[in-house]
């Protein structure tokens, strides 16, 4: 790890100014990902601007009945908040499925969205990686990739996004808010992550120098009947090999509203809009759920060793929607 400067920002404009003054500067949130990547040499900032103490640590109900979540709210506080648990239970479940109690206390909402992939080649600076070192190649495609992407990947990169929180936020149409020196802006989470294409090193649509200030969840009554399920290679403290955030509203035996997002299958949290479209207005049964999953997964391009993810996601869609349907019927 090379030497670096450190400054603690006390307000948003100060943070932006500090970052703007040094092209080699990065924001430091909880540090759970950035400090790790600095130790492995993947990230080499010349200056850290600590934004952990910015006054962005509130969770408030918006005028239209949604939620505004500050960027520095810890993952723990987000998961424990009564309004989140009541109105968006899948969001609480997603956060609690991630990392560990220690890391959730440290990690921020803003940082969570910006965390980098856990691809083992990306993390190993002695190996090629197009995301870390553009043009160097992707050893995963012909190497180890049993936990790599099946959707939306490219010949240049098959890494997945590791966030659990982001999957639930994607399902609930979250909007990321940010500040720049030129003023505030916002990006729907659906547009926040860039397609992989031939530029896997470009990950988000955030303007240069922007500071995430929060995430806004629009009101979503359907979210009250929601669930997050995560499958991983041990029962806890592991990244997903496949996860799903789902919400379901049933009326008169038909799907009135549905939300589906997948985790650990793409370079970003994957909103399953094709599946949602197939389900909307249709019957509430396992066959319909499976057909909807197939509609989404038709776009899957599995590699030799991750084809199981297609089966896994299909089964998760059926299982979780069935559980939610049962819940809705109560």
């Amino acid at each position: 790890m090379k030497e670096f400067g450190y400054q603690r920002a006390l307000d948003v404009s100060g943070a932006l100014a500090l970052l703007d003054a040094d092209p080699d500067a990065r924001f430091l949130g909880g540090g759970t990902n950035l400090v790790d990547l600095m130790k492995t040499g993947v990230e080499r900032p010349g200056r850290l601007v600590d934004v952990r103490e910015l006054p962005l640590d509130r969770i408030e109900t918006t005028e239209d009945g949604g939620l505004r979540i500050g960027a520095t709210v810890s993952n723990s506080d987000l998961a424990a908040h009564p309004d989140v648990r009541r109105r968006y239970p899948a969001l609480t479940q997603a956060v609690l499925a991630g990392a560990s109690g220690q890391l959730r206390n440290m990690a921020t909402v803003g940082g969570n969205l910006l965390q980098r992939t856990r691809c083992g080649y990306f993390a190993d600076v002695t190996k090629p990686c197009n995301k870390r070192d553009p043009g160097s190649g992707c050893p995963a495609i012909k190497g180890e990739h049993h936990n790599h992407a099946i959707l939306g990947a490219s010949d240049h990169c098959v890494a997945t996004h590791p966030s659990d929180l982001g999957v639930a936020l994607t399902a609930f149409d979250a909007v990321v808010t940010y500040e720049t020196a030129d003023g505030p802006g916002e990006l729907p989470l659906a547009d926040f992550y860039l397609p992989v294409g031939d530029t896997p090193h470009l990950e988000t649509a955030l303007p240069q120098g922007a500071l995430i200030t929060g995430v806004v969840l629009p009101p979503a009554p359907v979210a009250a009947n929601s669930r997050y399920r995560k499958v991983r290679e041990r029962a806890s403290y592991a990244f997903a090999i496949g996860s799903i955030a789902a919400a379901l509203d049933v009326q008169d035996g038909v799907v009135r509203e549905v939300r589906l997002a997948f985790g650990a299958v793409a370079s970003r949290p994957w909103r399953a809009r094709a599946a949602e479209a197939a389900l909307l207005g249709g019957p509430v049964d396992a066959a319909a759920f499976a057909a909807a999953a197939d509609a989404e997964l038709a776009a899957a391009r599995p590699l030799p060793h991750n084809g199981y993810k297609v089966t896994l996601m299909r089964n998760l869609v059926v299982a979780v929607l069935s559980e939610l349907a049962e819940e809705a019927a109560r």
Partner: protein
Amino acid sequence: MATAPPSTYSAVTLNINGEKHALTVDHRTTLLDALRERLDMTGTKKGCDQGQCGACTVLVDKRRAVACLTLAVAAEGREITTIEGVAEGDQLHAVQQAFLDLDGYQCGYCTPGQICSAVAVIEEHAAGWPSAATEDVRPEAGPPPLTPEEIRERMSGNLCRCGAYVSIVQAVARAAEADAAARAAQAEQGTEHEGAAA
């Protein structure tokens, strides 16, 4: 625009176990290395140095955190509690006593982190926080009972390679029962109990 290279050292004052420690740190120095290599407080262990094992768990502002991913310079102004500060003088904390009595360890290297984590788990549970093992996370469902399954999930951020998990869970359960009894007695005395901010 050209900028002067930033200073890469800072003078900081760290508040550890109620005592202030003034030192100059290389910004790269983690809280873990500051404790172990600068302050000779070696009770906090380095297992992976990457946030993947929990051996370096300490309490920061009464909440558990991994010291290996906390920069020492960023810990200034925080109230840090390490394993050396968990006991009250010679009186072991209930969690420490339970680990000792129930053999909640083997090699002992993950133990300080397990104990700091367990102290926080008991607080988090008392504050009503759900976990990934909680069937219904909605507030209407009420706080989940601290079953062995809940303890296992909540303690999963602390790996124990010796495989002492069975007695770790028993030790946390015993300490949590004692803590719950103490809270109940306190409540009975009419003392208002304030849970941790949710």
